Structures are given as C-alpha cells and as structure tokens.
C-alpha cells in the first residue's frame, strides 16, 4: 500500500513538473466577472459606461457596469450572437445573430431589444458609420466573396449592398476619411478593402502577407492596425492606403483595440503550440 501511494505521489510530482514546464506564469488580473455561456465579442458603450458581451452559446447579451464590474442585466437575443457594434448616434447596440440570420437592436437606456432585422443569411462583423448613421454588416457570402449590407440606423432598412473579395473577418470605420476598412481572407491571401461611404464604392485593396484576424482604427494617427496570424500587426496609413509598418507581436493575435488615453494599441495573443 505504501509502495502504491509512493508511486502515485511520484506520478503527481512528475505531472506537476511537466505542466509547470509547458505552462507560462499566469497574470494577476484585476477583476474576473462571470459572463454567460461562451462569451465571444463585446463593445463599450461610452454613453452609459457599460460593456455589452455576446454569449454565443446561450443566445444572450450580458450587460456589465464598469463602475460595479458586475453583470447588471442579461438580454435574450437571436441564436449564435457573435459580433456586436455600438451606434453612438442612436444609443443602440447592434448584435449579429449568426444562427438565426437576424440582427437584434438594443436600446442602451432601456436595455430592451427594440428591433429585430432579418438579414437573409449569416450576419457577421459589423461597423458603425457615425458620419452617415449607417451600419455596415458583413457576412453573407463565401470565403471568396462577401456581400455587405448597408443599413440605415433610423429606418432599419437596407439602403445598399456591396460585394468584396474574400470572407470578411473584421471591419473598422475611419471617421477622418469617412471610409470603412474591411479585413478580408480568401483561401490563398488576405487583403484590406477600403470603401468610401459617400458612394459606397471600393477605393483601394491592400494585399497582406499574413491572414488577417482583427482590425482597429486609430483616429489620432489616421492609421488602421491589422492583426494577422502568424505574428504580425500591419499599420496602414489612411492617407496613402499603404502599409507603413509591420510590427512583430508574438504568436497568434486574436483581437485588437485602441486605447485613446495612452495612445496605445492593445492586442491579445494565444500562446501557440509548436511541434
């Protein structure tokens, strides 16, 4: 019996040693807030100081107060809510429900769903165009071509469509140039497609060497930061629509955001497994 216990103890020690060898030191995070089932995307509402989180597996949105650091409400939306965007002009949150082919529009004062819009098929990334009061909804399409719906945020009606090459994985609105940047992937390459919102036409397509993952606009510098697998962030000037810098950021960038206070770009990476 003692021998068996000794063996098991040795095994536990060995397993612990292996885990400690392959696992880096964990960070001490400030606060951890329980969300819904499989939280996927989020958006910050600067008017109410709340964070809206899509819970992809339970068809809901968790609303977090940034003063309480707690969930203050949970709303039911459509199936597979993935992407989400904040419309500062109307005080609404737009949730793309990929599983039910709809968009749920949430009023940020009442925290109620005020409109459900049918999108026809699979809605994905969203961008809010503050200049024209429009929502750009990417998604319906294939890996080689996507269609973009342009929706008026007052009438909730589709006022235009647009086709771009590749599957759209992210989009960002450039308030200085009134343009929307779409990060697109095909089977063989990636690109950033620039659309002028005055006539909803493509004005540029910028090829990138790596697969795009996420995109954010830096209004202070007039630049777009594009996070790409395997380990790069590309910086695109909105004046020239050219890549002006490539930053090595480590493995597998997942998402990217702009910090206007510090003038910094933050991104989250996955530690990849190499074999």
């Amino acid at each position, binding site marked *: 019996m003692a021998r068996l216990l000794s063996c098991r103890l040795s095994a536990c020690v*060995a397993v612990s040693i292996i885990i400690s060898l392959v696992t880096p030191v*964990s960070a001490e995070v400030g606060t951890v807030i329980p969300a819904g*089932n499989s939280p*996927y995307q989020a958006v910050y509402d600067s008017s109410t100081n709340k964070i809206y989180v899509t819970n992809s597996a339970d068809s809901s949105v968790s609303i977090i107060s940034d003063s309480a650091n707690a969930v203050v409400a949970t709303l039911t939306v459509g199936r597979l809510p993935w992407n989400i965007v904040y419309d500062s002009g109307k005080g609404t949150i737009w949730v793309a429900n990929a599983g039910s082919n709809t968009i749920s529009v949430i009023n940020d004062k009442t925290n109620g769903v005020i409109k459900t819009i049918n999108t026809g098929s699979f809605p994905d990334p969203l961008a809010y165009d503050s200049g024209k009061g429009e929502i750009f909804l990417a998604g319906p399409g294939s890996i080689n071509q996507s269609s973009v719906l342009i929706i008026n945020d007052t009438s909730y009606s589709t006022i235009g469509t647009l086709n771009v090459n590749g599957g759209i994985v992210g989009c960002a609105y450039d308030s200085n140039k009134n343009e929307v940047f779409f990060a697109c992937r095909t089977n063989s390459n990636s690109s950033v497609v620039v659309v002028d919102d005055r006539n909803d036409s493509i004005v540029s397509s910028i090829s990138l060497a790596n697969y795009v993952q996420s995109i954010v606009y830096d209004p202070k510098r007039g630049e777009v930061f594009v996070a790409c697998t395997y380990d790069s962030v590309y910086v695109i000037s909105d004046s020239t629509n050219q890549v002006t810098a490539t930053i090595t950021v480590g493995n597998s960038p*997942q998402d990217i955001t702009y910090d206007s206070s510090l003038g*910094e770009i933050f991104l*989250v990476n*996955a530690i990849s497994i190499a074999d």
Partner: protein
Amino acid sequence: MQGYLVAINENTNSVIGWLPLATTPSCIVYDSSKQELFLINLFNDTVSVISDSVTLSTQPLPTPVPGLTTSFTALIVIIALLFILPATLTIVLIVTMLKRRSRRCTNVDAIA
C-alpha cells in the same frame, strides 16, 4: 490555452511590453471612462478587467511552448513508467507466486 496581452506605442509602432494571461481571450475592448481593458474569455465564460496602466513585462515576447505532442508523449511515457510498469511487475510477481504455490501443492499431493 494561455495567452498574453501586448501593448504597442502608436507613435513608434513598437511593442512596449506584454503581460501573461490566464487564458486566451477572444476579444479585447477598451473602456475610455475607466481606462480599463475588458478581456472576453470564451473558454472560461468570464470577463477579465485589467487597468491599461498595468505593469508590463519588457522581456522578449514569449516563444511557442514545447509542442503538445511532445508533452503528451513525455507524459504517457512517465505514466507508463510509474503506473503500468509497477502494475505489470506486481501481476507477474503474483502469477509467479501462484504458480510456485500450485507446484508445491502438486508436489505435496505426489508425496502423499
């Protein structure tokens, strides 16, 4: 799978530092009123809140950890050595003892 946070200076386009995280978030959002970062942890069903002034490591960015296959292979070998081998030896020992006892019994019967 663990991840890490990376900060880039928008003026120099260079990495300022990084911070290891308990998990790999699927999304990061900046809260300008509180100057905090909200990290959406898909695999943990949680949201982590980090100040944007958190102290970052300026050490070189993490390199890929040893491969999963290698780790599992090592784990399986160690488990085999620590559990399966002693168990096999014990079974062999018991079988040998039973055989000896059986032979002894046969011998006693033969003498009788």
